[in-house]
């Protein structure tokens, strides 16, 4: 619904009363989802230039130059509201939408990643829908991604009770193509406008507006679209073949706001007007009104602008794949979007007016809860560290997520070199060029300190990519918050933007794509601020690919300082101290220095493995290594550079910029790290015992067998399958 101010603005600009169809069109395009009216002012400030950036944010997908005329396209989107009411269809159509953004740039999708957020899977809570949401979101993604033959190679999964009766489903996609194949999106007067794919139906009516308000009614399922991955697969192949046959001048996916938003945005992009005959649109049902055709969000549809002379080639290709299409209009001289039905004009609006929704003025104020946080409190001494470590490993935020990743075909395409579950996933471009990618978020940190929490997500995503041997070359941000109309929530959004600007400027890594999703609230409460960061890295040499798998005889080092930073940590969550302490702070200089040092070590061939140290701290990072290497690890905790007052803080602090490194050339490693003036130390060795032994100069702190570790690490299988 338009606000009073927006109505006044519209009347003034239009100079007349809009009709009902025009109001529907404006309502969709001016929704928060499509117009970014609360965020545009801030999103604009993100640094998006760089020598590799061919196309920055703002288009369907960002385009990065990775050398030798190869380009990758990246995009991230969410489908939170739909997934919360209809998890299977909502998640599946989320995958479909982001894939079409990749093909609309002229590139072939080669990988998918998801960042998923749910409330706790704890079985004591019988009324919780969390398991139902989790199971069906995973199945929705699997059924869609597997069918279209694009591997889901990784992502990030987090459980937190602020997502009660809700979920976040973010999907990122990577495409690969050649520089000269990128669709330049241009149009000439007289070009034909073709709508292809699914017939337009009554599903997903007002989806964009639905996603731009609070979730208050579970009966809104008709606003959720119906997935058809088979048709998507045909649409992908037909579009790529038509692109390669130079048939397409411009193209755009139909997403939120359907035909209405797609046409106005495309018209604005090519700087030409369109004349559209709605009765030509192929529809699912006969009794669909012109208004419904304009705003339906039926999935698996794309608009193409075709030169008349290329039309027969284009239609041959689409007929071969059995994809239905209709020629719905032509490019015109004026700059208006003119809609006709049976020859009669039924709407006529300037696309400039449509795509430029008036900015909403939002107030920002520091949230009250931040003033109530306690910094210093007393903790009881820990008696059994083994028990705590096992509980942390069994925590689904930390433990093995094979239950999820095995439902995804992560191998199809023959590109997945480092598979899901590692620090980051590595995708083969060719045998000497690889792309590494990771999504990361931490809503607990972002809740307690939106600025430092956001820096932390950026640091962690970059760190993970570096662990595989890749240089970060681009960042995607997906900013997810509650209602922007709440000044306390809006404040957290602004702090997050500040952090991205500061980090990316300092690191000289451009933001190449992103999305803002507001109104993530149920009747219970808003979600915690939950930005997700995707980092894309480039590996230019096969020998640089590094895995987080230790071997027996490795000397172990830790790089980076462990500080008493347990605010928002999984440990504090476990012992019910959620609202205490300082979250980990990122020192940009150290962060950069440590990452460069690790890349240098990798490129010099002086390490065997490297592993990121984050959620659950050193304790869980070492346990993960003992599990992945199927071996024993013996560490003297006293040797870890730290300023922690207690053993549990040292073990479970989530300080950033830390790496655990294994090498068979300890002296060389020491020389390199000393020369770079890094804080680091040698902390122990791997051995064949299959026991994780952590002591403090001889005094045993943790002693656990591989069997105990793996049993707890695999707890999600039991939670989900009951066996």
């Amino acid at each position, binding site marked *: 619904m338009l606000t009073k101010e927006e109505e006044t603005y519209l009347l003034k600009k239009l100079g007349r009363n809009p009709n009902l169809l025009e109001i529907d069109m404006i309502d969709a395009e001016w929704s928060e989802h499509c117009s970014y009216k609360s965020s545009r002012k801030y999103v604009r400030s993100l640094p998006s230039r760089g020598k590799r950036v061919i196309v920055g944010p703002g288009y369907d997908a960002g385009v990065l130059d990775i050398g030798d005329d190869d380009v990758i396209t990246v995009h991230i989107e969410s489908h939170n509201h739909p997934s919360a009411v209809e998890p299977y269809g909502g998640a599946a159509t989320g995958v479909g939408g982001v894939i079409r953004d990749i093909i609309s740039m002229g590139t072939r999708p080669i990988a998918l990643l998801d960042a998923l957020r749910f409330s706790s899977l704890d079985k004591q809570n019988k009324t919780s829908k969390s398991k139902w949401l989790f199971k069906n979101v995973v*199945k929705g993604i*699997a*059924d869609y991604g*597997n*069918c*279209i*033959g694009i591997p889901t190679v990784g992502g990030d999964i987090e459980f937190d009770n602020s997502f009660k009766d809700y979920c976040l489903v973010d999907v990122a996609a990577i495409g690969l193509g050649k520089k000269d194949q990128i669709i330049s999106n241009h149009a000439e007067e007289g070009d034909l406008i073709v709508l292809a794919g699914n017939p337009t139906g009554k599903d997903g009516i007002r989806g964009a507006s639905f996603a731009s308000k609070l979730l208050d009614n579970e009966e809104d399922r008709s606003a959720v679209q119906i997935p*058809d*991955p*088979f*048709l998507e*697969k*045909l649409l992908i192949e037909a579009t790529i073949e038509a692109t390669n046959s130079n048939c397409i001048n411009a193209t755009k996916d139909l997403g939120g706001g359907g035909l209405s938003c797609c046409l106005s945005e495309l018209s604005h992009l090519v700087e030409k007007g369109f004349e559209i005959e709605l009765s030509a649109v192929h529809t699912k049902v006969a009794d669909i009104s012109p208004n419904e055709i304009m705003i339906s969000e039926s999935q698996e549809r794309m608009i193409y602008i075709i030169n008349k002379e290329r039309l027969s080639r284009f239609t041959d290709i689409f007929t*071969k*794949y*059995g994809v239905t299409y209709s020629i719905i209009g032509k490019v015109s001289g004026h700059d208006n979007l003119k809609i006709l039905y049976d020859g009669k004009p039924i709407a006529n609006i300037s696309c400039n007016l449509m795509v430029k929704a008036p900015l909403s003025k939002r107030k920002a104020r520091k949230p009250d809860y931040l003033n109530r946080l306690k910094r210093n409190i007393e903790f009881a001494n820990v008696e059994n560290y083994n028990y705590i470590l096992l509980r942390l490993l069994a925590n689904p935020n930390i433990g093995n997520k*094979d239950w999820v*990743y*095995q*439902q*995804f*075909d*992560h*191998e*199809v*395409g*023959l590109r*997945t*070199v480092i*598979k899901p579950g590692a620090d980051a996933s590595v995708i*083969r471009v060719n*045998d000497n060029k690889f792309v590494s990618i990771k999504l990361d978020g931490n809503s607990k940190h972002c809740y307690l300190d939106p600025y430092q929490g956001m820096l932390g997500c950026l640091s962690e995503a970059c760190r993970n990519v570096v662990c595989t041997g890749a240089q970060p070359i681009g960042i995607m941000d997906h900013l997810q918050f509650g209602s922007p109309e709440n000044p306390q929530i809006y404040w957290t959004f602004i702090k997050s933007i500040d952090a991205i600007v500061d980090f990316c400027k300092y690191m000289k890594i451009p933001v190449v794509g992103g999305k803002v999703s507001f109104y993530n609230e149920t009747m219970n409460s808003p979600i915690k601020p939950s930005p997700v960061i995707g980092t894309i890295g480039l590996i230019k040499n*096969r020998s640089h690919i590094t*895995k987080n*798998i230790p071997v027996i005889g490795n000397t172990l080092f830790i790089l980076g300082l462990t500080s008493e930073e347990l605010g928002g940590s999984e440990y504090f969550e476990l012992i019910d101290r959620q609202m205490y302490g300082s979250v980990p702070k990122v020192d940009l200089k150290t962060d950069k220095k440590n990452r460069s040092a690790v890349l240098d070590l990798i490129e010099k061939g002086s390490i065997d493995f490297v592993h990121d140290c984050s959620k659950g701290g050193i304790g869980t990072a070492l346990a993960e290594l003992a599990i*992945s290497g199927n071996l024993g690890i013996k560490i003297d905790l006293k040797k870890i550079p730290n300023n922690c007052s207690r053993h549990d803080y040292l073990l479970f602090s989530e300080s950033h910029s830390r790496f655990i490194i294994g090498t068979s050339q300890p002296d060389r490693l020491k020389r390199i790290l000393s020369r770079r003036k890094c804080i680091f130390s040698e902390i122990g060795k791997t051995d064949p015992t299959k026991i994780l032994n952590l002591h403090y100069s001889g005094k045993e702190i943790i002693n656990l067998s591989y069997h105990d570790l793996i049993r707890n690490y695999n707890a999600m299988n039991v939670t989900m*399958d009951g066996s």
Partner: protein
Amino acid sequence: MKTGIIVFPGSNCDRDVHHVLNDVVEINAEYVWHMEKSIEDYDALILPGGFSYGDRLRAGVIAAQSPIMEAIKKKANEGLPILGICNGFQILVEAGLLPGALVKNVKLRFSCKWLEMEVLNVNTPFTNLFRLNDQINIPIAHGEGRYILSDDKLHDLNENNQIVFKYKDQNPNGSTEMIAAICNKEGNVMGLMPHPERASEPILLPNQTTSNAGLIFLSLKNFLSSYIKN
């Protein structure tokens, strides 16, 4: 020597098989669209994995009615080597070129993981370079891979040595007797659920493992070269 890769709407491992045959194993291979009626040019055929027709109704059942299937049946009877991988296996079963049926995995969900299988028959065009009881490290990726058949048909399979590969150590989908691959009586038509094309290049293997799965394609190459020479 030329191999045809049959592409149905929804096939999605066609490009992977194309890459491995042409670039890794070095067998000349090209795509054949399912609307073709003539396939005279090929010395072998591969039906790749994927979701032909979106697995609607039942995996493989619609593709089994494609125009090209009549020609494929004829070639099968003439003894041409025909390999169905994953969805290709499902299509061969639905077309009646192989016995039994492939139904939903016991756990009712898709499963993508690496496992071991064992060689039981080395007398096919796809297994002649293996030794009996060799173990193969290979990934599966399917939701409907549970191979079932009646007791008397199972008896026939065993009798005629038609079980080519069996899963080892774990049954990933509930298949009868852990069956991963079977062939027809003559041995020229084989269907298997795991994906050998995904285990044919060392860089794609999981940590610290090796695989001889590429021998499936090399066996075909070996078979075709001796066959063509004679």
